[in-house]
């Protein structure tokens, strides 16, 4: 091996200029709940999101797909400003929720997070009873009489199909549930405070297939009341449950379209390669 071997390397793929703006028609979605314009994101000095533009449709499920490390989590963590807990993490651009830029300093993050709930990859039941888990956000944001509190907890647990399983041991610790139940508990906890948007970051990647199926059903049922954004690595899942799909690659939104169209007739070569499993 010597220096001349370098010439044998394949040429670097050309960086598409067009990828700065995703190849989607402007205002692809019917009614946008969230509008992302020119979003760039930095971990310290390192930029990981580049000029993201996206619209999240109201009462629809939007899936975010893309290879590992492409910035999916980073992107949705902007929507509830959870990133701003950390020193050095910075978002530049506009994220409009109902027309208001949530990146503005004036935004009340507590209220923002009530309106935009989040579900994480690992179920995160709080170290308290099942009831208190679901009641946590309610007690946080509202002052409710006991009966109403109980009613709302029951309603949330019913919405996630957990009520019949846990109604007899509401006082048991949330951590005693199975992984899938825990994740549904977390969803119930998020639903209880009556959010508008629900963000899910690979909510099923840590649970078994049967529990996953239940959560998928649940996600579909949620869209009548909520706007859902779900990050997933599982393309079948995206195809099954989402209405719109955004494909991310190296911090850019390569393609965004109705799910059916994106999976059957992608316009970008990279999208096609990804969904057909040629990389990722």
């Amino acid at each position, binding site marked *: 091996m010597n220096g001349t071997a370098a010439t044998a390397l394949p040429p670097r793929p050309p960086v598409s200029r067009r990828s700065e703006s995703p190849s989607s028609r402007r205002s692809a979605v019917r009614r946008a709940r969230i509008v992302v314009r020119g979003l760039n994101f930095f*971990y310290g000095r390192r930029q990981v999101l580049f000029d993201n533009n996206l619209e999240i449709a109201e009462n629809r499920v939007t899936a975010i797909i893309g290879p590992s490390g492409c910035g999916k989590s980073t992107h949705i963590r902007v929507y509830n400003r959870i*990133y*701003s*807990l*950390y*020193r*050095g*993490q*910075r978002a530049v651009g506009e994220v409009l929720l109902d027309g208001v830029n949530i990146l503005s300093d004036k935004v009340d*993050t507590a209220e923002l997070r009530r309106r935009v709930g989040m579900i994480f990859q690992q179920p995160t039941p709080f170290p308290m009873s099942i009831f208190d888990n679901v009641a946590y956000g309610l007690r946080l944001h509202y002052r409710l009489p006991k009966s109403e509190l109980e009613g709302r907890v029951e309603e949330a647990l019913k919405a996630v199909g957990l009520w019949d399983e846990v109604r007899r041991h509401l006082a048991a610790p949330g951590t005693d549930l199975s992984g899938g139940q825990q994740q549904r508990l977390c969803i119930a906890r998020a639903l209880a405070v009556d959010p508008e948007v629900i963000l899910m970051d690979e909510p099923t990647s840590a649970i078994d297939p049967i529990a996953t199926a239940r959560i998928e059903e649940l996600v579909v049922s949620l869209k009548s009341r909520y706007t859902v954004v779900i990050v997933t690595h599982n393309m079948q899942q995206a195809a099954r449950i989402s209405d719109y799909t955004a494909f991310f690659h190296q911090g850019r939104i390569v393609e965004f379209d109705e799910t059916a169209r994106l999976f059957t007739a992608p316009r970008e070569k990279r999208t096609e390669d990804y969904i057909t499993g040629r990389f990722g």
Partner: protein
Amino acid sequence: MTDERRRTGTAGDKLLRAAAAAAAALVLFLMAALFVGLGWHSALSLSKFGVGFLWSSEWNPVAGRYGALSSIYGTLVTTAVAMLVAIPASVLLAFFLAEIAPPAIAKPVGYAVELFAAVPSIIFGMWGLFVLAPIMSEHVQPFLGEAASFLPFFSGPPMGIGMLTAGLILSLMILPYMTSVIRDMFEMTPRSLKEAAYGMGATRWEVTRKVVLRHGAKAVAGAFFLGLGRAMGETMAVTFVVGNSHRISASLFEPANTIASTLANEFAEASDPLYLSALAELGLVLLVMTFGINLLARRMLDRFGAGSGGAR
């Protein structure tokens, strides 16, 4: 805009943050206050004796003349004896727990070692004075005196108490601390490293000596310094058996004093300001010594890398 933990937030957040920062500052304040406080009370002695305090061997409350040398000497000798025993013992014990013993034995023995660390100093003092000292005077010291009479360390009357006994008790007290740090180091050695060495046909002891101990040399040295710092400042166990004498003698059988034992013994009698000030200065000397040793220990033990959190 970012980093809401440190900036924005409700009144409750601000209060919590302020209280936490204040508590953190308290730690630093205390550390400084220790030096200032002891320095303040040492002022009289400092101005009277200057730095000569450190190497004057005279300790004469009646004449009002004080020097730290005898106490420093006793501290150094007893600690040296303790380290001489504890260094090999702790390495061997850690070797046993991490490499030799099957879990069924390593677990209870490791547990016993932990319990050992919890036994208060004064209990060691009681045991040293009433149990170990008689054995030392009747059996160990006469034997050592016979067997190694040519050494100046083992001469003089076998009284049981003295620097040798104090050093042995100290070694028992620091053994568990050193062992557990070294044992952690053993367990943190990458498995692949050990396996590579075993793969080359090395024996257990060779792997330990040439791979594990070398890989963790800093941590082991850190453990030794931790033990050293502890031994220097240990009070009650020593006070019971060291004999409390300000004479400086070569023989380990002779009674002596450490800085800590001088403080514990004489504080109650010290009535005049100069005496108290001299004791405070002794304390200051001990503080500086242990601080230096612990500084070295930390240097060697410190590891880096606390997570910054985030999307991944």
